[in-house]
């Protein structure tokens, strides 16, 4: 990881947590917790094991990222993910305080940063209902008030196998399982009937994405290329990256064609490359046979 620094944090926690500054904020809390358990994953491994690549229409809304990635990451790696939701402030406070005092698996809560929110590890809960958290943005321990916490979203605790001295399965094997899961889901989504609960159609998805919450940034849209490249680099990934760059530049410059049509072309390029990569991978690498 470029420009990565390890920051060791103990504030109120029973064991030392290692924060990697180069990890993207979305993954930071889970990554930090896993590092503390001796399971150091790259961002790309987290992306694959969390089955983060997603292109689909879920209940009529566009999905360009798997929002259930933490649950999928935990299923893939054999971690028991405890998930709770306490909308009531007093309940939330007492539950987080109680669980952070037990301190086996620290609670992770959703905290707001301007227009975004990320999961953050809670180090300590104060009597005035403020929380010391490991900030995935500032990359240090900060104190936040309850007004910055999104209690409508769940809070979590990740319980690693053999919690006192965690034992994980082989990373390569887990990554292969993650890849298989990802390709299986892509294939299934592609064959789901139009208009069903969760389905995929590049044109429709592009229309919804362009009309709705906006198009993700180029780096976000092409993260899967980086993730796949870390397992097997093929020329088609480069070509696809270039093609997406061209189409993306047209979209954001407003000089090109209709946004949704350009985005649909991006999805087509993705699908083609994913198929080529998968074919190569299963022919040369993984012992699995997902065809």
């Amino acid at each position, binding site marked *: 990881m470029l420009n990565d620094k390890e920051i060791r944090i103990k504030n109120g926690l029973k064991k030392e947590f290692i924060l990697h500054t180069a990890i993207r904020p979305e993954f930071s809390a889970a990554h930090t917790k896993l590092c503390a358990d001796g399971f150091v994953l790259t961002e790309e491994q987290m992306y694959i094991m969390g089955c983060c690549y997603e292109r689909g229409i*879920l*209940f009529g809304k566009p999905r360009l990222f798997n929002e*259930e990635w933490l*649950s*999928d990451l*935990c*299923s*893939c790696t*054999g*971690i*028991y*993910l405890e*998930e*709770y*939701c*306490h*909308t*009531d402030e007093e*309940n939330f406070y007492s539950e987080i305080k109680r669980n952070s005092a037990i301190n086996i698996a620290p609670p992770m809560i959703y905290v707001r940063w301007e227009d975004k929110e990320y999961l953050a590890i809670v180090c300590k809960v104060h009597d005035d209902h403020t929380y010391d958290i490991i900030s995935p943005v500032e990359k240090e321990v900060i104190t936040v008030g309850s007004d910055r916490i999104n209690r409508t979203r*769940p809070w979590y605790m990740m*319980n*690693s*196998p*053999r*919690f*006192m001295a965690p*034992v994980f*399965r082989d990373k390569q*094997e887990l990554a292969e*399982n993650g890849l*298989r*899961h990802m390709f*299986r*889901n892509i*294939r*299934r*989504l*592609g*064959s*789901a009937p139009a208009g*069903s*609960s*969760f*389905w995929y159609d590049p044109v429709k998805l592009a229309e919804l994405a362009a009309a709705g919450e906006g198009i993700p940034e180029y780096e976000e849209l092409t993260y899967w290329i980086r993730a796949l490249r870390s397992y097997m680099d093929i020329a088609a990934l480069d070509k696809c990256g270039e093609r997406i760059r061209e189409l993306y530049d047209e979209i954001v410059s407003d000089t090109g064609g209709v946004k949704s049509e350009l985005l649909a072309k991006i999805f087509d390029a993705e699908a083609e490359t994913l198929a080529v990569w998968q074919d190569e991978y299963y022919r040369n690498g993984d012992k*699995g*046979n*997902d*065809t």
Partner: protein
Amino acid sequence: MNTTGTEIKAMILENIAKHHGIGSHCATTALRTLTNAAGYPFSEAFCFGLSGGLGFTYQKYTSVRYHFFTGRNECLEEGIVNVLGGKLLKGSSDNSAEAMETAKSFIDMGLPVILEVDMMKLDYIKDKLNLKRPFHFGLHSLIMIGYDEENAYVLDYMWWEPIKVPLSQLEAARDSQDAPIKPSNRWKVIIFNNDGNIDYEPMLREAIRGNVHKIMHPYAFKMGHDGLRVFRREFERWFGKMDADLLRENCYMMSVLFERVGTGGGNFRRMYGQFLDEANRILDLPCIARASSVYSQSFRKWRTFAKLLDAASEAEEIDKEPLLKLTDELIELEKAGMDALAEV
């Protein structure tokens, strides 16, 4: 009919109900119903094995006098989606009314919802089980497949047909504060998107390997194989530590948990043995055949254990030796099963 005299039309997902049948455990029956409805021809045991659900938990909660046991782990739905593919949506809430609206909204979209409930709060279960002592079990799973203005319609593992439950009763069962493990209005929805292609071999290997790891490396020390050994050690001490009444109560609750409410050791070992048998028609490995035979033996021993415990719960004096001897044998069998499956 409602108060205005017009007929209330219930919204029921018949396409799910027609795939439901009686099963041996709530969560695995729910998975069989949902996978069958999605077009997968899986037995209940196969669903259990695919979910990597075999486990063991021994726990004492401060709010009740008895010890809690279960023969599964807590990630069945997550496990099956992980190996089979699909999308699992889940949530919980401290607001029971809001949680009920969430469940209804999924039904409106044609999706059945797995709900966790305290079974003692549901009249139809209480009447059927007819337990001698109240047993607030907050992790009972059922599938909600419909509702009208006053009732919910649910599928449950001991009933063929959808059961009509007053919405208020179901809401109370989901929000129960009486169970040592509270259901917390938890819900799960699985979207399988079956495309007709099932890559059995990697799927089965992954399910088995993942399960072996969970049992040999549990996240808490009273779980998995470690949990069985801790139980053996503490069980022996019960005889010198507990008064006769408390000991009898614990023996009774163990026998109920091991057999009657289907959560205990025996039923899951039986299902896992059957799963391995079915899996081995595809994988064809001697180690799986060995493990399948081990789990069939284990099932019979758990059943004997439950019967001895039931008898002990009514005995003047409890003979601990046969109980301890059986516990030792169960631990050995579990180890033998895991050792065999570690070769997969």
